[in-house]
């Protein structure tokens, strides 16, 4: 018996800021910066949006596509994020109420830098396979913040994706999943700090590349597959450069990677990143398509998924709600001042 | 039931009265009314105070006893009653006091209305004003007091072709009247261009479409009509009153462009007085926003529904036109200390009916009306006054 995806939903806020706009403030050639990162714009949450609102939007989008799904059959909700609005008080309980899954269920918030969402997918897979409950809801969402002027400010964006995981009514089976985890401090945020810190170039070779490549190779071995067996490949995308390079290293083509590479248009949605990419793939995939997905979270670890689209994908209503593409293309550009205001980078008077 | 007359009126200056406290305002108006009535403190049987939100504006509840105390009446141990009903509290206080006299419980009652609004900042004042709207299902969702009236205005424009210029005409007229009233907050005329060019508050309403934040108080001395002649030769009779309520939230109302509470309160008052809207020569209506006056003159049947803007623009409601509306300057120019509103409107009507309104005197004013709203129209009160001679 396999576990897999029962439905999916993504959410991207409509605000965007261009690298050029950010660079102009800090005396940097932002356009060149954007080109270097392969990021044309990044999404910005509205002042009334946070990880919880975006998680709810994504979860509701998933339920809307699959009317057969009774929220009361969702026995667990895990929200993975590094930007939960509360340090203490779960995001997941609010999502549970907002989709009417509460109260007979379990809920928790996850944190593992950019792979908290895929960690939630693995947990829900295990628990549905053990028959602890029928469906689990795994969410990856972030409104990530780069420190003003820091290189991360050009990429840290906002988005969310929600996957209903179960064993019946699968639209895609997760045939294999495997993780690769070490203690590698390439990126972190200490308690109470507004902005994260990172190890600069240390985030590359020993961190992202080592973990993604190791995990991918383990996944090939376990699945007994090669890159050409897959229709789509998606990797964690902290920028538009790393996933393309790692994909090439593993033997994937641009065509396989193109659909899931949303980072170029919306930036790095952290816990949402690989998951919104998967949503974009599922929006256009056909039964029988195979998807190779490897996420990455700093600190560090990779979660790999070998996915096969089933005939069930034709059974759900993919046209209900908005597609990832339509959200990616629904754009309102902000200037830096408005962006700084929305992201609360401007110190306000108390009270 | 005994009939009721007004035998004394008093009011303070309206405006930003930095050196005056709430209690000073209340007493000043009350004592002026008592002086005007030429009665002694011992003649007063009770005090009714209309006040919207002293608890929020100055952190003080229990204001009726406070006003009696500082008026030097503590030793009289008078019954004191504070009335709350949003912006209509002063008008309701008049009605309650009149009922106490009509029932025979009291002979002479002082009715005061007062608000001290400038001890808090503008943003806080706006929040307090909006507390008369539905906090749970309007305010929480970003609805401001001005915003709710703005949506009535937008719908009125949509349904009846009312224009921004017609809304502005209300403010221009009331400022013109206010310029003739020595106690008005704004004694300065404005133009349609100034109204249209003012900063937006809640579109289509701008700053000049909104009544100001004000401090001020007003008071009446009410007396049973059979005893009124002992104190004055010109008693003004309260010949009809009507009060009505409606859904609190604007969105729950039957229509956005009609205030049923005003319609019903008006009918009740006219029925009680056996008069019709055509008999009214002078009216003070609740123009907290320009759209409010347009809806009020329609709902009171001074003009047909949808014609309020056109009638105002054509000057039909100007001083000594068909019906003189808001000769005091209205809430817009005289000022809008919320709790004082209903009482201040009555003071103006009494002055008009007595022929004491000076430069803004309406000729042959025999019947006058006041119309006061609570909140966005969840409450409306209409009083009709006539000369007693």
């Amino acid at each position, binding site marked *: 018996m396999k576990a897999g995806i029962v439905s999916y939903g993504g959410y991207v806020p*409509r605000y965007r800021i261009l690298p050029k706009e950010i660079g102009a403030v800090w005396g940097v050639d932002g356009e060149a910066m954007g080109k270097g990162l392969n990021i044309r714009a990044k999404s910005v949450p*509205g*002042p*009334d*949006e*946070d990880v*919880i*609102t975006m998680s*709810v*939007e994504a979860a*509701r989008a998933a339920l809307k596509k699959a009317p057969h799904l009774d929220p009361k059959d969702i026995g667990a909700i895990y929200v993975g994020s590094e930007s939960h*609005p*509360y340090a203490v008080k779960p995001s997941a309980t*609010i999502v549970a*109420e*907002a989709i*009417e899954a509460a109260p007979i269920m379990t809920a928790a918030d996850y944190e593992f830098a950019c792979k908290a969402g895929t960690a939630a997918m693995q947990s829900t897979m295990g628990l549905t396979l053990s028959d602890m409950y029928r469906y689990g809801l795994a969410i990856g969402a972030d409104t990530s913040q780069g420190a003003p002027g820091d290189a991360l400010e050009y990429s840290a964006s906002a988005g969310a994706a929600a996957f209903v995981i179960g064993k019946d009514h699968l639209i895609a089976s997760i045939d294999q999943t495997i993780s690769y985890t070490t203690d590698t401090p390439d990126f972190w945020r200490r308690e109470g700090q507004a902005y994260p810190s990172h190890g600069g170039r240390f985030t590359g070779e020993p961190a992202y590349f080592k973990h993604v490549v190791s995990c991918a190779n383990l996944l090939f071995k376990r699945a007994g597959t090669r890159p050409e067996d897959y229709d789509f490949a998606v990797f964690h995308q902290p920028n538009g450069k790393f996933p393309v390079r790692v994909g090439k290293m593993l033997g994937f083509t641009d065509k396989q990677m193109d659909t899931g590479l949303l980072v170029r248009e919306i930036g790095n949605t952290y816990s949402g990143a690989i998951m919104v990419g998967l949503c974009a793939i599922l929006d256009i995939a056909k039964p029988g398509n195979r998807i190779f997905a490897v996420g990455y979270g700093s600190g560090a670890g990779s979660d790999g998924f070998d996915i096969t689209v089933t005939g069930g994908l034709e059974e759900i209503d993919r046209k209900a709600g*908005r597609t990832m593409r*339509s959200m990616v293309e*629904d754009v*309102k550009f902000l200037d830096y001042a408005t962006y700084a*205001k*929305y992201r609360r980078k401007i110190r306000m008077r108390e*009270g | 039931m005994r009939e009721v007359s007004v035998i004394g009126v008093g009011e303070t200056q309206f405006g930003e009265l930095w050196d005056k406290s709430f209690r000073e305002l209340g007493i000043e108006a009350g004592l002026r009314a008592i002086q005007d009535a030429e009665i002694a403190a011992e003649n007063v049987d009770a005090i009714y105070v209309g006040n919207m939100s002293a608890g929020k504006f100055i952190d003080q509840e229990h204001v009726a006893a406070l006003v009696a105390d500082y008026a030097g009446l503590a030793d009289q141990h008078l019954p004191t009653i504070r009335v709350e009903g949003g912006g209509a509290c002063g008008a309701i206080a008049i009605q309650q006091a009149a009922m106490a006299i009509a029932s025979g419980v009291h002979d002479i009652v002082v009715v005061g209305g007062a608000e001290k609004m400038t001890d808090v900042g503008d*943003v806080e004042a*706006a*929040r307090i004003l*909006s507390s008369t709207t539905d906090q*749970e*299902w*309007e*305010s*929480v*969702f*970003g*609805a*401001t007091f*001005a*915003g*709710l009236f*703005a*949506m*009535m*205005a*937008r*719908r009125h424009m*949509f349904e009846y072709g009312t224009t921004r210029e017609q809304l502005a005409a209300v403010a221009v007229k009331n400022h013109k009247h206010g310029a003739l009233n020595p106690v008005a907050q704004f004694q300065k005329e404005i133009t349609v261009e100034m109204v249209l060019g003012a*900063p*937006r*508050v*809640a*579109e*289509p*309403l701008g700053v000049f479409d909104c009544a100001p934040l004000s401090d001020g108080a007003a008071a009446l001395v009410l007396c049973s009509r059979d005893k009124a002649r002992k104190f004055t030769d010109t008693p003004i009779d309260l010949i009809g009153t009507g009060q009505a309520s409606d*859904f609190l*939230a*604007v*969105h*729950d109302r039957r229509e*956005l462009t009609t205030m049923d509470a005003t319609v019903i309160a008006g009918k009740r008052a006219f029925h009680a007085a056996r008069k019709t809207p055509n008999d009214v020569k002078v009216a003070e209506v609740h123009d907290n926003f320009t759209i409010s006056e347009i809806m009020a003159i329609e709902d009171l049947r001074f003009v047909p529904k949808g014609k309020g803007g056109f009638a105002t623009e054509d000057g039909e409601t100007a001083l000594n036109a068909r019906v003189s509306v808001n000769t005091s300057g209205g809430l817009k120019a005289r000022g809008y200390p919320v709790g004082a509103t209903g009482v201040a409107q009555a003071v103006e009507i009494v002055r008009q009916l007595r022929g004491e309104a000076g430069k803004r005197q309406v000729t042959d004013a025999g019947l006058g009306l006041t119309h006061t709203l609570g909140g966005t129209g969840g409450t409306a009160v209409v009083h009709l006054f006539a000369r007693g001679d």
Partner: protein
Amino acid sequence: MAIPRFWREIPSRYNLVGSKCGNCGTLDFPPRLVCPRCGRRSMGKMERRKLAGRGTVVSYTIIHDAPKDFDMMKPYVLAIVEMEEGLRMTSQVIDVELGDIKIGMPVEVAFRKLGEEGEAGVIHYGYKFRPAR
């Protein structure tokens, strides 16, 4: 706003739970204990009913003088929306250009922050509207 005051309205704020009169069948939002049309005949017959979350704009305004919780968004659109079920609600319309809002515009419900009790306090969530798509 006190926490319990908001907390007890969560079903309606998050999921548009209103009431249906068992006597006349009319829906109200928020849920009422007594039907405004049927009065006593509705007592004990008021059932909870969730709204579909779609409606059209009946009137709107663009708020420039904003309350504290909405200050970051000014100028913003506020609207009275007539829901498919026939009742009306008031909330902000988001993700719309100020020049595009008009009476008759179809809207759908969205989930957003409504406010917070200071930077250290509880965050309140609930419905807003956005153009239907």
